[in-house]
């Protein structure tokens, strides 16, 4: 069974500053993928970034990057130069051989002007 834990129910960041959202996971599989999804009030789930477990290099997508620590089963998301549009619920998720996503409980990010 897979589990995903997000220990920060809420976070806030000043516009243009950097914020890091935490995520830890547990899986018995050797081949798996990790994701961060963003859910604004529109309910639409938007993929922010994806990491393949077999890749040591941390994934980066523009202002979004991850710190993937495989041994520690940690997968944090760093948002640089935060913008008002980044305000949303952020979910960490894990998928394995069954191909279904297991989600964490989410972190509500507020961006302060």
């Amino acid at each position, binding site marked *: 069974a897979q589990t995903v834990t997000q220990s920060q129910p809420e976070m806030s960041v000043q516009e243009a500053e950097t914020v890091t959202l935490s995520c830890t996971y547990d899986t018995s599989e050797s081949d*798996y*993928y990790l*994701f961060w999804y963003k859910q604004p009030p*529109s*309910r*639409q*789930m938007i*993929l922010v970034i*994806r990491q*393949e477990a077999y890749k040591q290099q941390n994934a980066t997508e523009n202002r979004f990057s991850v710190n993937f620590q495989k041994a520690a089963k940690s997968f944090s998301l760093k948002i640089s130069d935060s913008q008002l549009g980044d305000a949303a619920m952020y*979910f960490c998720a894990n*998928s*394995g051989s*069954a*191909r*279904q*996503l*297991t*989600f*964490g*409980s*989410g972190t509500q990010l507020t961006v302060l002007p």
Partner: protein
Amino acid sequence: SAVISQKPSRDICQRGTSLTIQCQVDSQVTMMFWYRQQPGQSLTLIATANQGSEATYESGFVIDKFPISRPNLTFSTLTVSNMSPEDSSIYLCSASTGGNYGYTFGSGTRLTVV
């Protein structure tokens, strides 16, 4: 990546009735998933829908309550049967676009049972 059209976007239903939610994908996908998101909560997987076979349900979800159809590689429906106020949630469908490379989501159905 694939685009999913999910309908209806919201509905208010009387208890004891049923609602069918539809998801249409603009390309063929191997696997589709149905999730429930209760107010202020995370997403919980209801079932995995594969074309040509019975859906696979997660613990706590049963076919009689949440029947699913997957008649082809671009379409799936979820029915919420004999609804009660406890079924008030957002329901989302998702499609796996190949391997673990990407999961596309529909825009969700906000269901309120009164």
